[in-house]
Structure formats: structure tokens, C-alpha cells
């Protein structure tokens, strides 16, 4: 009797703490889920459009230049649009967030812009229609100092050149 009562109390405590921690986890994940996956931005509030349904930018993880599934999807849309509009040339701008040394970020921005450019070439766009420029961390779109702002700034943006 005594044993089972104390067992029950312990059990209750564990159960309660599970509920509490579940709430806590749920709260943080829902906040992040809407805008970021890992630390890659997945929202749209800074995205502009080259044409209807063709987003102009893709986002990267910290220190990375690997294209996510979503980024490749965006770049394929850009490639399709560029094929249909063969007189238009583009500049791919590479950008980094503010949490890195200036010179390394210039190189990183260049690497990101080229990752996007290479993907467009793979989908049939001629290399001489695409130029690249790196701005490193010099041209953020979001001026906040928090993980969400930084994720919006780690990007490559395809801009019409003519």
C-alpha cells in the first residue's frame, strides 16, 4: 500500500514533467517550422518574383553553399523561365549573414552565387547569360540580429541584368 502510493506519486511527477516538456518543445518547433527548416529560411516574406510563380532567391544554411530540395525547385523554375525568355540575361548575387569575417564572407557569397549559377547551367541555361557577384555580408535584406534575420540574409538572388 505504502509502496504503491509512493510509486503512484513518482509516476504522476514523471507524467507531469513529460507534459510540461512536451508543451515547451511544441512551442519552439511551431515557431521555427513556419519560417525555417534547420537553419535554412523557408518563408517568403523577403522573396520577390522574376515572373508569376518564379521566386528570385534561394536560401542557405550557415557556412554552406549546398542547394536544398526547395532551392533546386526554385532554380528549375528560374531555368524554365530563362529558357522561355532567351533575350534576358541575369546576375546571380551571393550573400552571407553578419556572423562571419568580412573577407571569408565575400568568398562564401561568391561560392553560393556559383552554386545557383551551376544549377541553372545544368538545366540548359548558357553560362554567358549568367554573371555572378558576391556582396558578402554587405547587403542584408533583414537588419535584425537574430537567427531568423540571418537566415533570410544567407541567400543568392537572381536579378535581371538587362
Amino acid at each position, binding site marked *: 500500500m505504502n509502496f504503491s502510493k509512493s510509486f503512484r506519486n513518482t509516476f504522476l511527477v514523471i507524467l507531469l514533467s513529460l507534459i510540461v516538456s512536451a508543451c515547451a518543445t511544441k512551442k519552439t518547433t511551431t515557431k521555427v517550422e513556419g519560417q525555417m527548416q534547420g537553419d535554412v529560411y523557408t518563408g517568403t516574406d523577403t522573396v520577390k518574383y522574376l515572373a508569376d510563380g518564379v521566386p528570385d532567391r534561394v536560401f542557405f544554411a550557415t*557556412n554552406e553553399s549546398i542547394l536544398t530540395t526547395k532551392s533546386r525547385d526554385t532554380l528549375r523554375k528560374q531555368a524554365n523561365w530563362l529558357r522561355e525568355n532567351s533575350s534576358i540575361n541575369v546576375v546571380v548575387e551571393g550573400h552571407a549573414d553578419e556572423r562571419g569575417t568580412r573577407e571569408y564572407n*565575400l*568568398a562564401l557569397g*561568391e*561560392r553560393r552565387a556559383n552554386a545557383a549559377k551551376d544549377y541553372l547551367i545544368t538545366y540548359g541555361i548558357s553560362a554567358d547569360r549568367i554573371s555572378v557577384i558576391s556582396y558578402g555580408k*554587405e*547587403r542584408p535584406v*533583414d537588419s535584425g540580429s537574430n537567427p531568423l534575420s540571418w537566415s533570410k540574409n544567407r541567400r543568392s538572388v537572381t536579378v535581371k541584368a538587362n
Partner: protein
Amino acid sequence: MIRIINSFFIIFFLLSAKAYSLIEIDITRGNLDPLPIAVSPLFQDDSSKRNSINELKIENVGAEISLVVENNLKISGLFNPLSKEAFLQKPDIAHLKPRFEDWALIKAQALITGKVTIEDKKLKVEFRLWDILAGREMMALAFTTVPSNWRRVGHIISDKVYERLTGEKGYFDTRIIYVSEEGPKTARVKKLAIMDQDGFNTKYLTLGNELVLTPRFNPTSQMVTYLSYFKNLPRVYLLDIETGTQEVVGDFPGMTFAPRFSPDGKKIIMSFAKDGNSDIYTMDLENRIVERITNHPSIDTSPSYSPDNRFITFNSDRSGFQQIYVMKSDGSNVKRISFGKGLYGTPVWSPRGDLIAFTKLHKGKFYIGVMRTDGSGERLLTENYYQEAPSWSPNGRVLIFYRETKSNDKGEGFSAKLWSIDLTGYNERQVQTETDASDPSWSSLLSN
């Protein structure tokens, strides 16, 4: 453009024989016990005062020069200049022969006295450094220049006193080139700016029409190399700050960045980015020959020569993350030297040759630190939310760098300022600039 170095003729001559002295500053310990020093206003007679007003619109340039000296000695952290209100002896009498008891009474251990005359558009200055405890003269010097150079006179006196009392060359008659910043983070306007080491005589070298970054002094001349986005083509430029002429460095089919001069001033070393890969190149400024130094699919950037030109330290992510490497100046014998926790960037070789300063990122904090050239003896000097890009004072004693503050979600609260810190980790202080500032680079001594 702007003519900055005006002619400066210094005639040094010793007024008396060298005297051995008892005071010495132990500079290995930082500023724990700064030396009490009295800087008496340099004496100026009435006719000279009239000329001073005519030439400079300053009545007592002798007193102004002593303030320059006092401020320099104070910001070095090694001296404690005493309040002039406590001085018992008049400047003219003190300069002839100080009453050592009077100066000892206010706890001064050293005393600077001097005399200024302005005649025929020439500024003549003589000064003496006295050892109060030993009761004797330590140094006496005189020189002549154009009156408008009066602040530099103060810097040169500071350098002489610093050298005499510490045994190391000073760093006061120097300038800082940096990037002046204004406007919101998303549309920052950046200009090249130059100022005296103590924050005076700021001049803007570009108008802000294009983005400019990372200016660096040539250690042997009044040339600067920097990155400009002129016509939206990011390229390394060479600028003569005396004549204002500038030119693109080399003919590269892509972005060149992270430039720095070799210590002999004959080459520019920089990164060139092609197809997403950055490697290190040099260009000889005489024959324009370009050499490729690294050839690796990783990012290689932020190169800096050793003072003997034999080695290069640089930043690479060839291990997967940003780390510091050292190689021979022909690109052979590449060795990683940073092995601590975190990411490392912006290595800069000390002008003394024994240390490399760097920026480190670890667990969301940025550090300025130093390590030996084999990577041993890592010491972190300062921790902050964001700071980077250390540049050495010409004597290898002080580092200047920039620090940014965190902004809120609206981007408010952001600032970028220059800071300096002693090699020992003591005497961290903000360097005053007219605007926000970043990417500082320290010049060599202008005289000596």
C-alpha cells in the same frame, strides 16, 4: 584629391650628452602601474604667440602641443599624465632647470618641458625629458617644421619619450585608414577615411558612391590598397593618397579581394574568386607579373606576409571549416596552425614577426587573439558579440580592430566602432571616429 602629407622637415640634434637614468617602464606587464609623468606646457613668448594667432588661429600652440603629448601617453596605458593644476613651476623656468623637489612633491617621476617659437613661417620646437628621481636630463631634442604640422610635432615628441622610457619604438606619429559607415544596415554607405592615430584630421578619400572595403597601408609608402565595387565590379585597387590617383590591380576576369601589401611594399597579395573558388595570388607592382600562390578547391583568403617576406599566413576552409594556415611565400609547405575550438579568420602577422593576430568565432562569440606562428600559445585578448579584423601598430604593441553591436528586430541599436587593445590584453579602449567605422589599418611611422 586630398594632399595629406605636407612637407615636414625635422632637424634633430642632441642638445646634451646622453644621461643614464633610473626610470624605465616594464612594458611586459601592461598598464597595471602606469608611470606618473608631468607634461609641462611648452613655453611660448609673446611675439611668438602673435605669430601663432596669425599662422594657426591658435594663441598658445605650445600648450596645445603638450595636450597632444599628454593624450598620447595616456591612451598608451603606460603613463599617467598628472593634472597641470598641481604644477608649481612655470613652463619657461622649468625648461631651463626644473626644481626636482617641486615635481617630486606631486609624485611625478618624469617631466617633459619645452619651448616653441614661430618665426618666418617656421615652427621651432625644443623639448627635454627629465628624470625627477635621479634629478637629471634624459633627452633633449629640437626640430623645425611648418606651423600647420604642430599636431605632428606633439606626436613625434610622444614617440621620442615613449621610446626613451620603454626601449621600444613609439606608434604616435601614424595614421589609421578605415571605412567610414553611415545609414541603415540594409543600405549602408561606406567611404574610405583617414585620420591621425589619435582621431584628429579626419579626411574622406571617396564619396560613398560605391561600396569600398578593407583598405590597407603600404608599410613603405603613402599607398593604400582596398576593395572597391566601382561599376559593380568588385576589384582590388591601388590608391596614392598623396596624389589621389588610383588604378585597378591586375586584369582579373572576376572578383579580387582581401588585398594586403608585402612588407617590402613591392607586391600586393590578394584573393581571386573564379567559379566559386577563391585562391591566393600576388602581383608585383613594378613588373605587373601575377603569380598564383594557392591552388585548392577550398576558400583561401585573408593572406598576410611575415615581416621577412618568407612566409604567408592565410585563412582556408580546406579542413571543412575556417582555419588559419602558414605556408612558404611560394605556396609550398602549407601547414594548418589553428587547432582550438571554433572558427578562425583574418590572420595578420605581427611586424615583430613572432605572433599572428586573428579573429575567432566560438559558441556565438567573437574574439580577438594572438598565437605564435606555429599556432602554439593561443591567447584571447577580448570577447564580444561581434568584432574582427585586427591590425597591428607599427611597433607590434597594440591591435586596432572593429566591433559591431547587436541590433533589435527592427535593426535599431546597430553600431560599428574602432577599438584598440594592448598585446597584453589590457588597456582596451574605443578609438574616436566622426562616423561609425570598420576595417582599420595602421600606417607605419611617418617620421624617423
